[in-house]
């Protein structure tokens, strides 16, 4: 064991042995730290972050910090040799690619808090809110309500208020009576369905149909369908085009999202609307969880990069980390933010899996990306409200627009900027940077005015002032002047969800051993391959398999025992393709349970998927433990206190 060199900047960490080390303070990592610290058998935890701030990709940064963070970091220094352990260098990969990051003009104040993770809100009835309350992290947070939810009407260049309840439908002056009737009827149907009365429920067959089809069959007008799909159910992709749609929302999911939205409205008496935004920015969330973990005894060290992972020279198993300061720290388990790359050989070094490691794809050419933009203005997008969400649905900006753009405007009353300023975060899913840039640029042009041009004659086709006839029309003069904007692309690391009796993560060690066309191999298990003995057929719920764009919709997952602790997993795909991976149970258990990588920010507006993925990770890591056990009552607060918009 090497002696830690004394470093003036980095005093040595004591103790040197922990149950869990976390690298990076992204929201999932922070939640995991807090959860592990709150577990019934409390874990000793060291939480490191190379940055001088909390949150990593979930942080809230000032403009001067933003641009260095989004740009790729310097390569890590090579690890110093070690005698007892092999030191595997840990690579940092940047998940963000700046497209345009101009310096903030001097006339603008620099005390702005910009969210790296894009437009994001909490729904009042979210499981995330329950988690905040249960973990008592809510004590460290305050929220503001998002006053208005709007959807952009591309044809008229105007905003339509999204009706969140039948009372909002009643009040709205923009809908015809027939539209009100249809919408009211639909809300009623959904409520009846959710009430659980078997006679009123929507049939299972209907629940499996695309939501778009269901809404159309209900007889809703097209305009209303758009509102429900993109502004309430927050569908990302164009739902109209059933052939060329990456992510067709099922009725079941659509209804669930609608239910979340509806139950969110009015949950907290002092928050009208469905959505909440944390005071001081999204970065408060990881920070609050870290604080919770620290209260429970975790040790936090910022500005501390990790140079290498230490593995057992004989077995290749993970043992610890070597800090940039040179100190070696040991732990049972390791959790890393997604911008750190697992060294190739490490997790797979169990003998059973040695053959598969060679093929390990580490290139990380992520197919799924999200384009984000941050805009600064001095006037609100809508004069009568300061905090608002605007959805620009597919095809509202131009005909090839395949994904919807979400824009969240926050004002000075959330303390993210001086009063009188507005920060607008935009994001949209995209396949490549060009597509994302084009879409966001169009959205920005539709919402804002360029400071120098004075009139928007750069794009007459989309100029909303052309056919302005309603009171809601975004007049040229009403559009806020764009003071500054930043544009960047972020890769999304997929969390592959396999739901069954237990949840599994596809570890990086999986090796694609074969893919071939064979219709019968879907279900039941393939006949020709005599070694395949199906153990169980699982329903697969994979949110896109990421790396393979020809994957349409997985149909079945077959786990077949191969003997000797090995098994194969096959995913039958629509069109008769079948993919197989081969693992050993031991390797799976080892890799999942020792080193985990947390998910990156996704393209969603809500936090639910991230919170769910985090909870699943926790359950895999600590199977016997409760994820934030219910606290005994003394410091319990009422629901209302957690949310304090004023």
């Amino acid at each position, binding site marked *: 064991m090497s002696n830690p060199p004394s470093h003036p900047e980095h005093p040595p960490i004591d103790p040197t042995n922990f149950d869990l080390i976390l690298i990076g303070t992204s929201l999932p990592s922070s939640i995991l730290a807090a959860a592990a610290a709150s577990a019934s058998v409390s874990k000793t935890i060291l939480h490191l972050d190379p940055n001088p701030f909390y949150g990593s990709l979930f942080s809230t940064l000032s403009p001067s910090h933003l641009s260095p963070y989004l740009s790729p970091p310097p390569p890590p220094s090579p690890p110093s040799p070690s005698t007892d352990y092999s030191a595997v260098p840990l690579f940092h990969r940047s998940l963000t690619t700046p497209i345009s990051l101009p310096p903030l003009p001097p006339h603008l104040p620099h005390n702005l808090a910009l969210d790296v993770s894009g437009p994001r809100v909490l729904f009042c009835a979210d499981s995330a809110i329950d988690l905040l309350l249960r973990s008592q992290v809510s004590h460290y947070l305050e929220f503001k309500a998002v006053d208005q939810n709007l959807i952009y009407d591309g044809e008229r260049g105007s905003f339509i208020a999204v009706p969140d309840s*039948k*009372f909002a*439908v*009643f*009040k709205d002056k923009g809908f015809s*009576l*027939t539209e*009100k*009737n*249809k*919408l*009211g*009827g639909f809300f*009623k149907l959904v409520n009846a369905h959710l009430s659980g009365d078997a006679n009123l429920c929507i049939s299972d067959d209907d629940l499996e149909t695309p939501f778009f089809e269901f809404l159309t069959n209900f*007889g809703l007008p097209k305009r209303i369908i758009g509102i429900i799909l993109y502004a309430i159910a927050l569908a990302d992709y164009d739902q109209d085009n059933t052939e060329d749609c990456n992510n067709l929302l099922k009725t079941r999911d659509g209804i669930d999202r609608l239910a979340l939205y509806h139950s969110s409205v009015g949950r907290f008496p002092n928050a009208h609307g469905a959505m909440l935004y944390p005071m001081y920015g999204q970065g408060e969330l990881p920070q609050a969880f870290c604080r919770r973990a620290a209260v429970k005894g975790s040790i936090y060290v910022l500005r501390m990069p990790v140079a290498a992972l230490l593995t057992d020279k004989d077995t290749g198993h993970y043992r610890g980390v070597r800090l940039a300061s040179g100190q070696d720290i040991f732990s049972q388990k390791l959790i890393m933010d997604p911008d750190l790359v697992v060294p190739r050989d490490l997790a797979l070094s169990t003998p059973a899996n040695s053959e598969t490691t060679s093929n390990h794809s580490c290139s990380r050419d992520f197919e799924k990306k999200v384009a984000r933009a941050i805009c600064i203005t001095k006037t609100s997008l809508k004069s009568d409200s300061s905090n608002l969400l605007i959805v620009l649905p597919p095809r509202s900006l131009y005909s090839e627009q395949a994904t919807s753009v979400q824009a969240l405007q926050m004002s000075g009353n959330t303390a993210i900027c001086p009063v009188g300023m507005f920060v607008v975060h935009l994001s949209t899913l995209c396949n490549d940077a060009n597509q994302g840039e084009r879409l966001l640029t169009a959205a920005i042009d539709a919402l804002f005015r360029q400071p120098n041009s004075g009139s928007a004659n750069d794009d007459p086709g989309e100029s909303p002032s052309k056919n302005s006839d309603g009171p809601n029309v975004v007049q040229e003069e009403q559009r806020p002047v764009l003071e500054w904007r930043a544009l960047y692309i972020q890769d999304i690391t997929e969390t592959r969800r396999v739901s069954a009796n237990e949840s599994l993560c596809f570890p990086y060690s999986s090796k694609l051993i074969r893919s071939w066309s064979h219709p019968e191999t879907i279900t039941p298990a393939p006949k020709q391959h005599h070694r395949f003995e199906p153990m169980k057929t699982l329903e697969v719920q994979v949110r896109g398999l990421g790396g393979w764009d020809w994957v349409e919709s997985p149909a079945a997952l077959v786990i077949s025992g191969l003997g000797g602790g090995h098994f194969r997993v096959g995913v039958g795909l629509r069109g008769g393709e079948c993919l197989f991976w081969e693992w050993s149970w031991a390797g799976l258990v080892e890799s999942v349970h020792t080193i985990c990588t947390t998910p990156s920010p996704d393209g969603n507006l809500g936090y639910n998927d991230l919170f769910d993925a985090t909870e699943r990770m926790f359950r895999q890591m600590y199977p016997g433990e409760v994820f934030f056990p219910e606290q005994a009552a003394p410091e319990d607060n009422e629901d209302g206190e957690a949310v304090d918009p004023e």
Partner: protein
Amino acid sequence: MHGRPRKPSKPEDEVASAAKASKLRSLQSQFLHFHHNHIYEKESIEVSAKLLEMNPEYYTAWNFRKLAVDHLLAQPLADPPSILNEELRVAESALRQNFKSYGAWHHRKWVLSKGHSPVDLELRLLDKFQKADPRNFHAWNYRRYVAALKNIAEEDELKYTTNMIEKNFSNYSAWHSRSILLSNLLKRKAKGFYPKEKILADEFELVHQAIFTDPDDQSGWFYHLWLLEQTVKEESPWLSSSWPASGSTVSPMHTADGNTLLLVLYFSQPVRGVNSSSVIVTTELAESKALTWRPLPLNNSDGARSWVALLKFPSLQSDDSTAHPVEVNLGYSAEIVSLGGSPLSNDFQTKFVVRFQQPDIQHVEEQEPIMWEDSNFKKDEMNFEESDLIPSFNQLQINKDQEGVASKWKVDILNDEVLLFRELLSAMDCKIGKLTLAKLLMALDTMFFESSGSKSYKMVYVEEVLGLYSELMKMDPPHFHYYKEQHSLALLEQITSSKDRLLRYCWCYKNSGTNDRSAVWVRLNNQSLSQIGCIERLLWVQNLDLSHNELGSLEGLEALQLIERINLSNNKLKGFTSLAPLRHLKLLKVLNISNNKIGQHTIDTTRYLCPSPLSNDWKSHPSSVHDPQLLKYFDAFLIFRDLTLTQLNISGNPVREPDFACFIRKVIPTLKWLE
């Protein structure tokens, strides 16, 4: 607050409630001791407060506190604000216990009426209560009271209801409050609330939002019904019909008192103030000065739709065949007003001619009983069309010009509503939507008449209305009877809509002559009517067949003063008391009430609404007290004692003991034929 299922009580709850009950009992006995001894000391007042905080429904304790307050205020050194503040506190904590406690709200009102308490506090308290339960009608009532005390403009309160409705439009109390405020504002034509049609159009617009957003929520529909009523209703009453009809020729009757002529005035709504000075009858022959106008039914002295008077001619002038014109004028004096105080809409005048006839033609004694079988009636040889036996319709001389202009907006509103609800119904099946459409169409059909001044109702929608009610009867069995009644009324509107149509229901009896009005038999049998309507268009009828219908009540029939023969067999009349309207038909000779359900129940529930042996009516017949038969059939006695029937058919009813026939013969000595 609403829609919460009741949970079965747990054992521990029962223990707790038993403990509470014993505590209440001891408090109560303590309290009653103080109360009976008029002890208004500190201790006794505190006991009552404790009691009320536990059980706000205990009225006696509230009354005790009122007595105590009055007692304390009368003391020389009383400090009214502090005494009353204590009362407000008790009432408030009682309301916290049960915010629907009538006693507590009333007590608060009483305290406030003393005038020593700041009203602003009340508004703040109300805001809390109305936030906790926006539909609490106690709070809404109290709010109107406080607003009046504080002189809050009704316009502002109306805005408040708008806000509440926008928060949650499923709020009967808010809509109701709105209707009250709006009625007041419209009535006094407050600034911005005139003309009425503009306001009503805005209100329709508002309530449409609620109805279309959630058609299953009834609160909006109720407000819509109220709006419809506001749109259709005429403040001012008018004379809808009279007998003798304008322009007709009539003959007086020979009676023991000489020649008399019955005058009937029928108004569009109940009126009062009909008397010899407000109705001027001009004739050269008769004594018209001292005419006595009686309302029908008699007990409705407050106001009635029909009023009758008997015009007496001095002596028989059998050789006189000249025409004597009679003129009836009303409206010149403002005495005739509706129950709401509105005077007649116009001056009304009817002119008719009296011609004396030979007594032998006029007064034919019946030689044989009337047989109501279809075979006895015929259509041929009738020339009613040419004669004026059936009085022409809409014969009143009214200047309708202004009426027509004023009504155009009503027709417009109704037409818009009809279009809208047709659209709603095309999208969904909705009971209350169908009912509303039916009401709208019916209102339109009758409104055309009023505005156009034509000779007959247009009745363009009546078939559709009848269809809607028939559907509703099938769709919504619990409200079958209501739809049936509406169906009956619509059907009668249709039948009596024009002379031609009504002629289809007019028949001749056997060989009797056709030159006399008494020869016209109006046969509305087999129409499945459950209610009688359109009385104003049937005032002239002398022979009426309503058999084989579903009538359970004869209300309205009393205005048909000329009726001599009526067939009510095979209906659903349940007791003698339901025959009460017949008492007023002084000319009735032939009555058929066979095959009804008279006497089915030993206890006739309708009698509770009518004079009974215990009422004064009984005392006016002291001799009958000792007649056991009279006692037994007292209900029947009250009906039949006033009638001079010659023919009565009462067979097929549950009442058929032999002594009943005997009783009837005793009561109606004129009876010739009894079945």
